[in-house]
């Protein structure tokens, strides 16, 4: 070993652990790493299992926080100056276009990646408990659903800040959906806007929600999310290993779990080590997990930066309450909802139910409700926890995929096939007037 210690290695790898003890120690002692396990299974590390989508979400949140804080120094949350300050950021501030673009692309990517992460978790049965004691993965799934909603809200509140036409009409439609909610609708909208009209009161409220309240909420939920993963003994795929070993070995000792990853209760690493075949299935988190984390950070930052250079961040004319842009579209991740509110006004006899209530509140409410209770309805065996397309979960996976597909189709129709006055047009058809796509 000593011969390998070139100067290069001395410079770069001084922190590289020399023994298992050092490897574990380096995790536990480190402020930034102590929430990692000291050892991790190869399966949990693999790209093919998780695609590292949750990690990518967290990195995007980091990018958004850093760029967002810089933007806060440059942006003025007042009706008179918001639009001009964004214009300044875009055209006058050095690298302002990049900062704003990165923040914007980061937000779009984050919505997409968080959603894909949820899809991954569902399809792998990642919300299912395995064999270890004190697991509560369904709870972590619920935390995840709240994180998804918070991400959408973050994005939606950010959307208003430029105070351009895009922003103004998206918020008009969005807050009027709240208005359609029975009983509490009117108060909710009033509280959200700080009045009855979309004006200064609304802007400052959305600004504070966007820059302080929601990011803090996401951060807290994220910490809870990670803590639960440790308590649950790592990713669900690790439970399959434990099950395999149960079959290989003599009946396991009741009070002990396989898991190295959950530092549950009073168990020590050594007691647990007896049950997971370490060398075959697990590796020290330092450097395996830390290195891979760096790779994912690099990939995410690169992708977001490249997209920022390629994709232009739009800024429409300043907000004008008198003229609705035509067509007026919500951000793409809400277009399936816009399709729903446009198509779901039902008339039964003399009774009319506004599409805002049906498509804007009832349908999404049912979907979120289903998401929340689904882990408790899932009766599949423990063998389907942490397995892609587990064999006794095929029915639920199909139902889930159909819903996802429906949402995607509505999103695509809303994005590419809706023209002036929300008319249907093929993507290659030209629109009659002269409107812009977004």
């Amino acid at each position, binding site marked *: 070993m000593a011969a390998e210690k070139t100067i290069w290695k001395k410079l770069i790898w001084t922190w590289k652990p020399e023994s298992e003890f050092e490897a574990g120690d380096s995790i536990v002692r480190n402020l930034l790493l102590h929430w990692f396990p000291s050892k991790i299974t190869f399966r949990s590390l693999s790209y093919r299992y998780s695609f590292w989508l949750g990690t990518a979400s967290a990195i995007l949140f980091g990018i958004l926080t850093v760029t967002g804080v810089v933007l806060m120094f440059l942006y003025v949350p007042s009706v008179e100056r918001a639009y001009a300050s964004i214009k300044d950021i875009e055209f006058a501030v050095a690298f302002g276009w990049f900062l704003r673009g990165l923040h914007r692309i980061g937000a779009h990517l984050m919505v997409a990646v968080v959603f894909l992460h949820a899809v991954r978790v569902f399809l792998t049965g990642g919300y299912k408990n395995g064999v270890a004691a004190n697991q509560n993965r369904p709870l972590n799934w619920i935390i995840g659903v709240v994180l998804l909603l918070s991400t959408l809200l973050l994005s939606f509140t950010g959307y208003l800040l430029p105070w351009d036409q895009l922003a103004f*009409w998206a918020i008009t439609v969005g807050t009027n959906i709240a208005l359609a909610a029975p009983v509490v609708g009117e108060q909710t909208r009033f509280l959200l806007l700080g009045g009855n009209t979309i004006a200064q009161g609304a802007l400052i409220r959305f600004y504070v929600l966007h820059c302080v309240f929601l990011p803090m909420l996401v951060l807290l939920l994220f910490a809870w999310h990670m803590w639960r993963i440790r308590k649950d003994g790592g990713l669900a795929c690790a439970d399959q290993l434990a099950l395999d070993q149960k079959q290989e070995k003599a009946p396991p000792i009741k009070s002990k779990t396989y898991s190295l990853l959950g530092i549950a209760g009073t168990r020590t690493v050594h007691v647990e080590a007896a049950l997971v075949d370490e060398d075959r299935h697990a590796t020290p988190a330092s450097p395996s997990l830390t290195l891979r984390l760096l790779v994912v950070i690099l990939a995410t930052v690169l992708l977001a930066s490249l997209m920022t250079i390629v994709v232009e961040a739009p800024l429409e004319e300043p907000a004008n309450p008198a003229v*609705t842009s035509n067509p007026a579209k919500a951000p793409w991740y809400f277009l399936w909802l816009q399709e729903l*509110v446009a198509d779901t006004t039902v008339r039964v006899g003399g009774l009319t139910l506004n599409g805002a209530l049906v498509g804007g509140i009832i349908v999404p409410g049912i979907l979120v409700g289903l998401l929340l209770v689904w882990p408790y309805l899932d009766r599949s065996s423990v063998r389907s926890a942490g397995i892609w397309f587990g064999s006794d979960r095929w029915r639920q996976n199909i139902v889930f995929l159909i819903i996802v597909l429906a949402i995607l189709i509505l999103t695509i129709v809303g994005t590419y096939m809706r023209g*002036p006055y*929300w008319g249907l047009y093929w993507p290659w058809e030209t629109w009659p007037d002269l409107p812009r796509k977004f």
Partner: protein
Amino acid sequence: MKTTKPSPDAARQPHTTGGEGGQTRRSFLDRLGLGTLLTAIAGQTWMMVRALVPNVLYEPSLRFKVGTPDRFPEGVTFLEDRRLFIFRNQKMFYAISGVCTHLGCTVKMIQLNQPQKVEIRGKLTEERWEFHCPCHGSKFYAEGTPYAGPAPTPLAWYRLEVAADDGQLIVNLMEPVNQDFRLTV
């Protein structure tokens, strides 16, 4: 965690003065303290939330003057900042809201190339314009009744009055009226 130290409760025993129902002075004070703390937190939370519900709104008045009748040409005038169509037919005036009843976008007035005969609530009428909403494609006849798209109700009609002092038209957004309303000046 097992501990060999005497529990805190045991340490308290000597102070027991034997209140009724096992209540001691100390446990009473404990509860009083905790209660006070919780009440204080609840009260302050309430104050902070309440502070976010505005008491005064600096919003435009819902009843406002729009100018003397002779300012309005024959036909239609769109008051941009109020999102309101004012119609004039000789001496008769009426006002239709430009706010779509679906989700609040501003409708656009579409002038028809040729007058069109349509049946509205059983009556055959001739119309020269319609309102179309850009957001989700609701369409309204000339007097505001929706016939396509998601809008659930007709565009609102508002009361017009003549100001006693200077003869200006007054729009009253607090008073919706039906579609037969006309103000004659």
